[in-house]
């Protein structure tokens, strides 16, 4: 899934970012600070922003991408406002968590590990949230939903929409 980074909508941040780049570009080793600032400002590393870094710091885009994928703190997908984690621990799995996960995916039109284009929701999976007796369990942000059924999914989401 592609996330169209809206340069216009982010105009202020982009301007701020460019100002930051022109300040640091005379320093040796400006790439890491640049990436860190970008992650901070945009909450992920959009392609467009990496291209700006490439142009301003005169570093090939491939090298920037190589560096960015090396460090685990950088992300290429914006995190949604609401993080949904479906527990896929054994108990939940046995109780049909996979179907629940699929229902979330269907409902939001994204896959696990992705974020909706309005940046509202991200879906992830969890490895045992330690609530096996209430399986299947779903966690949204820090709220726990026990004994989730497929038909509950829409209703659960509505509260966050």
């Amino acid at each position, binding site marked *: 899934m592609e996330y169209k980074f809206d340069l216009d909508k982010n105009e202020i941040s982009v301007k701020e970012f460019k100002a930051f780049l022109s300040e640091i570009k005379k320093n040796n080793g400006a790439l890491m600070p640049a990436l860190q600032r970008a992650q901070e400002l945009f909450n992920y590393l959009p392609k467009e922003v990496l291209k700006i870094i490439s142009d301003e710091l005169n570093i090939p*885009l491939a090298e920037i*991408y190589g560096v960015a994928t*090396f460090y685990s703190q950088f992300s290429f997908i914006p995190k949604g406002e609401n993080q949904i984690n479906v527990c896929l621990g054994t108990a939940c799995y046995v109780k049909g968590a996979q179907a629940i996960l699929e229902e979330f995916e269907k409902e939001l039109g994204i896959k696990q590990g992705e974020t909706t284009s309005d940046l509202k929701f991200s879906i992830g999976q969890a490895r045992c949230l330690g609530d096996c007796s209430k399986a299947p369990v779903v966690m949204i942000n820090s709220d726990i939903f026990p004994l989730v059924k497929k038909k509950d999914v829409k209703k659960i989401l509505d509260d966050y929409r």
Partner: protein
Amino acid sequence: MKTVKLTIDNKEIEVDSSLTVIQAAELAGIDIPKLCYDERLDIFGACRMCIVEIEGNRKLQTACSTKVREGMVVHTKTDRVIEARKDILGLLLDNHPNDCLICEKAGSCLLQDYAYEYGVKFRTHSGKTRDPYIDDTNPFYIYDAQKCILCGLCVRVCSRLQVTGAIDFVNRGFDTIIGTPFNDGLINSNCVSCGNCVSACPTGALMPKSKEKFRAWEVKKVKTTCAFCGVGCQINLLVKDDKVVGVEPVKDAVNEGLLCVKGKFSFNFINHPDRLNTPLLKEDGVFKEISWDRAYEIIKEKVDKYMEENGPDSFAGLSSARCTNEENYLFQKLFRAVLKTNNIDHCARL
């Protein structure tokens, strides 16, 4: 130049003190295996195949990243070294498709060569292997991550020698591959298709998209000069059944092992069906095939005619900056010595 004396595999040699063990061994005619080493590049130290035992060191040392020292005693083929190399090769094979039978690289693959030399086989195991990733977007070559040993030669050739920087390592650890920005494919990167990465790849990970099927041992190599610009890059034409099927750069030459997209990949014109195969004469606006004898006859007729009617300066010749010295020499000789005119020029100006 300061020199030092050292012993490698009981052979005593004296070499420049700035050399590394791997360079000294090469001078001594001792081959140390290596997968990520290229004398044109900085030491990378990733493959660990060049490990040797150095007396006085408890640990194994990599020959590529160890400088020679006075009195150093190096052993490149002890049991310990050989076992370690076998283990490293085994680890590579564990994460490499067992498809040498159909791999185009077979016969010129360093991994295969070393596996053979050290007697290491593929084994079955239940562990993870690298996820499939293929970049076939470039018209001339293909990258197959599963055959990649991550020696980084392609990345370093691209960034340090070609200085394009179209590819780099992507991800970390076991998930590392060689990729383009956002894995959008070579064709969407700043790749200039020079293929210098392909020439450097020791395995079948980066391979030309060949129209012809050929095995490394079936081709004869003919060293010649590339015909696409004035740099004069030295190349080996790979020839199978009287057909040029590939090109590889020569390292010890003006081009230092580099080529451009034309030199590396534009060889199909040689055996192209459109090639002119016979002299053609235009008669009534239509070209007809004629023999060489007939062609020469016509030329003689024309020359005699104009020589008599118009004199030597009615002849003119355009020689070619694409032909050899010998041909250019003969061409001007033809005009000067035989046709008696200096109306001769070539396209130096274009």
